[in-house]
């Protein structure tokens, strides 16, 4: 047996993030409570920045992280799409962490100090004045590490471990809101139960595929799709189950139902993390599974995935139209966007670059949008009801301009990243022959533009209520989040060339 070769440089981004998460846990024990927040924030930011640099240093690599002599062990595959998405996750997470750290908009931040205290009890009311728990930062780092692992997993088992690693901390984070704690806890429990349910599908699908292919390696499954003598029914059940689990995380119809409830209940910074980073990870997983593992059986799953994509695009847009709560609106819009992204998954090969560009562009916009949501407040609570936003342009024109830009981007108006990303993705879909899906996509995005524009009208053309919510001045933390999101939205709308080039150069999966 020859010696195991490990590509430490290639693994370094994940190692950095996980190590920082452990160190963060250690800090909880040794650093005095008053000093924990700045220390944890600095650690998380430094770790994510270092992880991004480490990813950049690996650019151009196309190899497995583990190998023995001549044989590759495909559990972790460092190739173009994997690295691009790792980088995207690192950057988006960096921005989301700044939002987690925001303390000024509501005193002590959005997170509860001791989650075990019974909601709305006297002790709970008392602890509302205290700063929130700082464990959220190590938890977020664990989740981010899991996401980074998810997009480079080369076999199903690694992918499953990564899936759990990214999910479990998120379930916790969802339940840690300081205000409206019951809704938050309910969201966490729902997300946990349904997530566990979906994970079971993953395991079951993995078992079926193992039965079919005799391996859990994605390349091996692809080979087996051509040559295996086992009954093909195993493949179909396996593909179906695996798809369900991944589509659940991606929030595709009919596996989307947790999305509005969880997005609304979770603390807004956590929602931003989910809408931005988890989306990237989920689609990173989908792209890899379908491009690498199931490409040879494309003909078999093409129809059902097409149906799901259509249902997701239409359903998301259709439900978004009547939403009266800004977080629910963004949740349904995230569902519709999952539908557009599925076009990129179905189109396979050539669309990978465009899909990744879309993920990055959408991530920046949506995180900034949630950041703005967290600024508009009725007293201590967020004013998420849209009617409360009426006439915001009169009292806080700056915030209204920024939110208008973000809404226009989500509506896909030219000169914003929303337009270039959709246009590129749909063009790639057409070139791959998916004209029908693109037609549905165009119609769906025309419908979806309406609720966004309604928000814009509400902001500018309605009279503010006498007790209109106030826009709390953000600290540099949330301010940076908004500025970065808006800058990326405009930059990627006006001059998308450089990122598109990187994405399309990084769009080839490692061949076996």
């Amino acid at each position: 047996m020859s010696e195991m070769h490990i590509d430490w440089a290639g693994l370094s981004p994940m190692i950095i993030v996980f190590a920082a998460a452990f160190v963060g846990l250690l800090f909880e024990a040794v650093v005095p409570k008053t000093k924990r927040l700045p220390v944890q924030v600095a650690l998380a930011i430094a770790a994510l920045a270092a992880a991004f640099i480490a990813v950049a240093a690996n650019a151009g690599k196309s190899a497995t992280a583990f190998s023995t002599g001549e044989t590759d062990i495909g559990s972790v595959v460092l190739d173009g799409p994997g690295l691009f998405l790792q980088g995207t996750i690192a950057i988006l997470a960096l921005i989301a962490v700044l939002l987690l750290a925001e303390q000024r908009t509501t005193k002590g931040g959005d997170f509860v100090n001791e989650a075990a205290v019974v909601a709305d009890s006297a002790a709970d009311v008392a602890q509302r004045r205290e700063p929130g728990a700082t464990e959220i930062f190590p938890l977020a780092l664990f989740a981010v590490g899991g996401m980074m692992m998810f997009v480079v997993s080369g076999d199903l088992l690694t992918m499953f471990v990564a899936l759990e690693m990214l999910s479990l901390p998120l379930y916790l984070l969802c339940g840690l809101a300081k205000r409206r704690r019951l809704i938050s806890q309910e969201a966490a429990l729902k997300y946990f139960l349904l997530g566990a349910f979906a994970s079971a599908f993953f395991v079951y699908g993995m078992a079926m595929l193992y039965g079919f292919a005799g391996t859990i390696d994605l390349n091996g499954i692809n080979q087996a799709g051509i040559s295996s003598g086992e009954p093909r029914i195993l493949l179909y059940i396996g593909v179906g189950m695996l798809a369900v689990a991944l589509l659940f995380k991606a929030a595709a119809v009919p596996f989307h139902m947790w999305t509005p409830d969880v997005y609304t209940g979770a603390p807004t910074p956590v929602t931003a993390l989910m809408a931005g980073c988890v989306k990237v990870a989920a689609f990173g997983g989908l792209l890899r599974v379908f491009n690498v593992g199931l490409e040879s059986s494309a003909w078999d799953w093409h129809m059902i995935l097409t149906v799901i994509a259509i249902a997701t695009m239409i359903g998301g847009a259709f439900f978004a139209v009547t939403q009266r709560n800004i977080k629910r609106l963004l949740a349904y819009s995230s569902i519709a966007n999952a539908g557009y992204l599925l076009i990129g998954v179905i189109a396979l090969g050539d669309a990978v670059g465009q899909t990744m560009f879309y993920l990055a562009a959408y991530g920046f916009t949506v995180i900034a949008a949630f950041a703005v949501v967290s600024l508009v407040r009725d007293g201590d609570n967020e004013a998420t009801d849209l009617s409360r936003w009426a006439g915001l342009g009169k009292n806080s024109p700056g915030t209204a301009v920024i939110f208008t830009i973000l809404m226009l981007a989500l509506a896909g108006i030219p000169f914003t990243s929303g337009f270039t990303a959709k246009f590129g993705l749909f063009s790639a879909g057409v070139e791959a022959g998916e004209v029908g899906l693109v037609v549905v996509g165009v119609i769906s995005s025309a419908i979806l533009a309406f609720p966004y524009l309604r928000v814009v009208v509400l902001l500018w053309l309605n009279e503010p209520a006498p007790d209109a919510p106030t826009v709390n001045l953000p600290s540099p933390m949330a301010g940076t989040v908004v500025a970065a999101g808006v800058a990326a939205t405009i930059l990627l709308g006006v001059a998308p060339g450089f990122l598109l080039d990187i994405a399309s150069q990084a769009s080839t999966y490692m061949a076996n």
Partner: protein
Amino acid sequence: MDEVTYAPATGLLSWTWLLIALPAAGAAILLLTGRRSDRWGHWLGVATVGGAFALALAMFSGLSGLDNKTAATDLFTFISVGELDIQASLLLDPLSGVFTLLITGVGFLIHVYAVGYMAEDDDRRKFFAYFNLFVAAMLILVLGGNYFMTFIGWEGVGLASYLLIAFWQAKPSAATAGKKAFLTNRVADVGFLLAMFVMIGAVGSLDFAEVFNGAGELSDGMALALGLLLLAAACGKSGQWPFQTWLPDAMEGPTPVSALIHAATMVTAGVYLIARSNPIFNLNETAQTVVVAIGALTLLFGAIVGCAKDDIKRVLAWSTVSQIGYMFLAVGLGGGAYALGIIHLLAHGFFKAGLFLGSGSVMHAMNDQTDIRRFGGLWRVMPWTYATFAAGWVAIIGLFPFSGYFSKDPIIAAAFAREGWEGWVAGGAALLGAALTAFYMTRLFVLTFHGPKRWTDDVHPHESPAIMTGPLVLLGLGSLAAGGLMATPVAEWLVPVFGEHEEHHGHLTHMQATIATTAVVILGAALAILLFRGGTDEVPRAAAWPVRLARADLGGEAVNRGLFERPGRVAAGASVAVDARGVDGIVNGLSAAVGGTSRRLGRLQTGFVRSYALSILSGAVIVVAALMVVVIQ
């Protein structure tokens, strides 16, 4: 068909982007400096458009000296992925050249007028910022070197128009009208986007030259689909049937906006799109016939409704719908009529802008009233407005030797020249439209300026200041002369774009068509003078059904309500119901049946999770079952 090639720009012409950058910079400065520029902001707005006009003139003369009369500039690569390469490119050719002159020239005059018209408005600076933004977007639309750039301008003018209609935010009707305009434009955008994706799929490029050169290899069905999608886009933007209703509602915006956007420039973008895409439309006769049919239908539709309206701006708006119908008719006829459509578009730009600005001047004098039943006898108090409005009036009805005579009559003759019964129908509609135009415009003119005074008690009409009458006079002169001066040279100028065409005669000779047109025009005008010289009732009278129908926009609203609004409401209601109750209801019902637990103990949160989980399970079952179906097949 000849190969389409565009020569790279040289010298002054490589500065085409500056045409767009000037008004764009104006808009940016006005928006960024905020209240600080309130005192001088409007002059900056005027200056940037004036500068762009001067530049456009210089470039136009530079262009005429070139052999192939094209100047293409690639600014930077916008999107380049795989086969698809989209440049931010500009193209100055004879077609975009005349549009640039129209937009900057008429735009400049309207900007000057707006300085006076908006003088009392607190937000005049913001108004000029949006106005400049519109001009920049419109220039991108016509100067874009590929469909992608055209689309960017297309969306930009839509957005600017939405902002400007809703400019008078205090009026709820303005906000509603803005929304309506926007929604209709979304429909148009879907058509445009799909057309672009068809091009990407079939030709692999959005570049004008490549699409036109590759168009010959499209299948018939593909060419037809492409033509119809582009047509849907054009109809939405240009207020053509069945999307006509947003345009008259858009009159809620300030009058200079109506003049610039909803008469002279933006609404003609549809005509531009079809004229620009002429190689695609030439390929498919069915698509051309549909364009002709829509043009003929809309020109009659607009003219009939125009006869029954009493609001001065709405009459002009319906008249715009009708006149653009003539342009559609012309570009649908193809061949030599493309140029006729463009000539009518240019002539119309002058006289309709003049008429709108004149109506604004009247409104100024009459405390912003718009009801022509309460005008009358104004010729004595506002002589300049009267004279210039008269110029627009004789121009639009097409009396010899004024503008409309040279631009509209050839279209009528060309319609008669179409072969077979279609020629009779299209020609007949165009001829009837000319008679109706003469009738409603004369009615408008007579009721406004002549006859007894029917003013409400509190008005004291006065002539508008020189800053408003100045542009009126220039536009009035243009109305009188533009058609005659432009007819021949513009047709020749546009030959590189549309190709050479022999004039051919069909059912009527040119002379016969001209005589017939002049006869019906005089008849229509005389009838209107006869009926309305003594004034009219001050409130609408009960009328026979044709008049009632015309007053109700020929049922356009009702159709809208039935076709779009009601299903929209039902869908919205259903979406709410499903979101709140339906899914739980259905799924809980299912879960009751599946699990044997028939009792639902209220709406517990665990019930929700269970029903969500069941939804996932059912989805999974469906996914696997569907995969199995593929096996069995």
